[in-house]
């Protein structure tokens, strides 16, 4: 590990080489959301047409913000709080806000990893536990909840989460989830023991492994029957959708959250760079690779979803064939999947009454394709169901969940770094306490706080954190970041810093984006997002076996105390911004009104009096 050249004062750790730095940034940006959020958005927003707002948002909003953060971190060589304090003490709150958001996101993000670990541990079983229903208590049939929904749904909601019917019933701590959460935190801690020295080595694996797995999945998925159906469905552009403003909003928010800006993690990572480093190239590289990964990941995901829809359609048709064959007592295998339509038509003509009497399911491939999901629903229910039908199911399940785990782990590094770097820079802990211990304490605190998510109602809380913590506060922080750098620090100063670091001044495109386009876009996105969220009646889907339309999820409104918590979660991270500004103003004013002392340590009164006398003499 390279310590800074001067051994006396600065002991800031450094990256071993540029590749480590780039891989860490890419790993932070490329997270689970690239795999389970982007394909869903692509699908519901008209396939190929969604790429247009997505790419526009990337170029005009994502890349400028990314470049800004990387440049700032590299220039000031401190974590998020230190950077904003250096620009102006009034802005310290922005850094604290980043830190708080990073801490809250750490908590729930690692719970997702705990769930991935749970599924990973179970992928070694043959047959896969989510492929069949367990028997009920008196061994006469299958468990009713499982039969009404599907085995995958049952495994996720009952055996993994043991979910309660609503958020108010908390249930108890589930020991199996607690130990999975503990192991997730232990893995994160092991990578952080020596700071970026250990993390930088792990990141070679965690950043590259997902691409390997995605490629393997791509090759396998394209050979599955029904893959082309899924791909066509995904990418068929529906140009009409571009007229819907919701699409543009979702594209902008997706790019923003996908690049993981405003967490403070990117600033911390680039602060470990040597001073002269081409951060413009880095920013473009990270941004483009992030979007490319989203696209690249969408292809196997949707091939496999197409395969799943195809399998479901085939089994639906087979069921109908069996029902018809049994009813009409035809010879077995007379009606096959190929001549099914022909037979149905014939039977409808000859004996329509009887056909109506047979309980035929409506088998439509489109309906099966439309059964998409995003987030945990995609990974743990839909995808795991699809994997069961693939030959060699265990291997695919193991590969998939290991990929999800390493995607999430590399993002966790950035989140945790966004918490640890400011603590170190603010010198909140005495220097004799080693960094590893600070990391351990933070991991322990986050683990204990995350135990809420291992209770029966845990999944509902994760959804709340996911929707409200990682959204509005980040947008506000990013907006303040860009205003702070461009208007408070000054575009001129910033351009000179960039000239010093990269050897060339930022061109007109970057200047235009930073000064006008990006802040404007951020403001518009922020306001529209808040307005849209406020208009939506806050309800949440619950898994309630007693619901009459079960297995459909029942929509329940949030109770008042939960709503209050939601407001708190959105507001508290942002509160430091005005509070610190006010505090600094009051403090500064008080200091200014007292003695006129210079803050330089080597200055004494004699020096200052002399200067004044000299100026008086000259005058």
């Amino acid at each position: 590990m390279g310590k800074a050249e001067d051994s006396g004062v600065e002991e800031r750790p450094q990256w071993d080489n540029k590749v480590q730095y780039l891989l860490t940034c890419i790993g932070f940006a490329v997270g689970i959301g690239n795999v389970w959020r982007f394909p869903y958005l692509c699908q519901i927003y008209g396939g190929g047409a969604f790429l247009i707002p997505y790419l526009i948002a990337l170029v005009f909003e994502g890349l400028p913000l990314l470049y800004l953060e990387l440049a700032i971190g590299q220039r000031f060589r401190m974590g998020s709080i230190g950077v904003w304090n250096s620009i102006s003490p009034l802005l310290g709150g922005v850094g604290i806000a980043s830190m708080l958001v990073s801490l809250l996101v750490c908590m729930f993000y690692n719970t997702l990893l705990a769930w991935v670990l749970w599924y990973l541990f179970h992928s070694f079983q043959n047959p896969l536990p989510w492929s069949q229903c367990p028997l009920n208590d008196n061994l006469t049939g299958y468990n009713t909840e499982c039969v009404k929904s599907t085995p995958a749904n049952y495994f996720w909601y009952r055996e993994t989460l043991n979910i309660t019917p609503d958020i108010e019933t908390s249930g108890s701590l589930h020991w199996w989830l607690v130990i999975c959460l503990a192991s997730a935190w232990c893995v994160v801690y092991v990578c952080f023991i020596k700071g970026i020295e250990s993390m930088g080595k792990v990141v070679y694996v965690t950043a590259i492994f997902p691409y390997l797995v995605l490629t393997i999945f791509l090759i396998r998925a394209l050979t599955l029957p029904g893959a082309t159906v899924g791909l066509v469905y995904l990418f068929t552009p529906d140009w009409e959708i571009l007229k819907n403003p919701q699409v543009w909003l979702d594209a902008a928010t997706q790019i923003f959250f996908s690049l993981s800006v405003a967490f403070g993690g990117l600033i911390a990572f680039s602060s470990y760079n040597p001073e002269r480093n081409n951060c413009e190239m880095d920013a473009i590289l990270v941004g483009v690779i992030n979007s490319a990964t989203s696209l690249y990941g969408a292809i196997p995901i949707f091939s496999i979803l197409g395969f799943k829809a195809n399998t479901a359609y085939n089994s639906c048709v087979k069921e109908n064939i069996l029902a018809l064959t049994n009813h009409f007592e035809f010879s077995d295998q007379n009606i096959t999947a190929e001549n099914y339509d022909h037979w149905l038509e014939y039977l409808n003509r000859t004996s329509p009454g009887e056909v109506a009497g047979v309980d035929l399911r409506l088998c439509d491939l489109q309906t099966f394709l439309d059964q998409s999901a995003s987030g945990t629903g995609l990974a743990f229910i839909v995808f795991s169901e699809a994997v069961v039908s693939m030959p060699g199911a265990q291997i695919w399940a193991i590969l998939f969940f290991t990929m999800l785990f390493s995607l999430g782990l590399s993002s966790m590094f950035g989140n945790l770094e966004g918490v640890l770097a400011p603590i170190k820079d603010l010198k909140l802990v005495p220097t004799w306490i080693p960094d590893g211990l600070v990391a351990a304490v933070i991991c322990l605190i986050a683990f204990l706080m995350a135990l809420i998510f291992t209770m029966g109602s845990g999944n509902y809380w994760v959804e709340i954190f996911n929707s409200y913590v990682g959204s509005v506060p980040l947008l506000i922080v990013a907006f303040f970041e860009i205003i702070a750098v461009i208007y408070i620090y000054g575009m001129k100063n910033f351009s000179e810093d960039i000239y010093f670091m990269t050897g060339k001044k930022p061109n007109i495109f970057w200047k235009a984006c930073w000064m006008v386009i990006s802040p404007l876009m951020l403001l518009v996105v922020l306001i529209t997002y808040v307005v849209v969220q406020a208009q939506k009646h806050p309800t949440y889907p619950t898994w309630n076996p007693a619901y009459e339309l079960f297995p459909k999820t029942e929509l329940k409104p949030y109770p008042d105390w939960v709503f209050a918590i939601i407001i708190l979660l959105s507001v508290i991270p942002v509160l430091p911004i005005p509070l610190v500004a006010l505090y600094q103003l009051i403090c500064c004013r008080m200091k200014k009104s007292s003695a006129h002392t210079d803050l330089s340590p080597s200055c004494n009164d004699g020096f200052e009096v002399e200067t004044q006398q000299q100026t008086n003499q000259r005058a």
Partner: protein
Amino acid sequence: MLGQIFVLLCLSSAWAQQLCMPEASDGYKVRLSINTALGDQAYVWNENEMFLFRATLAFAMRSYSGGQDYNVSNIVVCAETPRVSFWFVVTAPLNSSRLIDRSDVEEAVRKSRNRINSAFLLTDRSLEFIGIPPILTAPVTPDTPQWLIVFGVVMGAVGAGIVVLLVTSVVEKKRKKNKKSGDEDIEEEPREKTEGNGFARDGVYNMSFSDDDPVTQM
């Protein structure tokens, strides 16, 4: 005499046929899906196969009832369809006008279900007795859930990693300390110089401590 016996036989078979009819209270419907189950190696369902069925069912009744003399003639079959489905009833060995109870037949079939299935190279799903649910095989649950084993392996590796890293960092620190205290006496003087000249951002560089001019010039 011969004629009377003939008439009696006809009557008895007709009577037997009357006993067996679709939706008979003591009968069961059987459905075979030979083509679906065996594909290319499917056999054709004919009189011989039916005879085999009746014989296996008679065997099942024999094993269940503890040796009572059930014969092929006691298994009456009717309503055969090209699906290959038919109804059957079982008559008592001694009194061919009495039908064996539904529940007894069900128990007998359940007990020898495996033998019946294997006689036809079929399974519970391809040889269905409508009304007699197949025996559900509970999934095998080993004593230690398998996932705990994998968890133990992973946690063991992680724990070992933590311990190794902590120990190596402590050992390195101790080595550095020893090296430092050893070299301190030798390196004291030049170190002071470098510290003075070093890049200090926190303080202000004070010219009077500079070593540039050891001899002050007049």
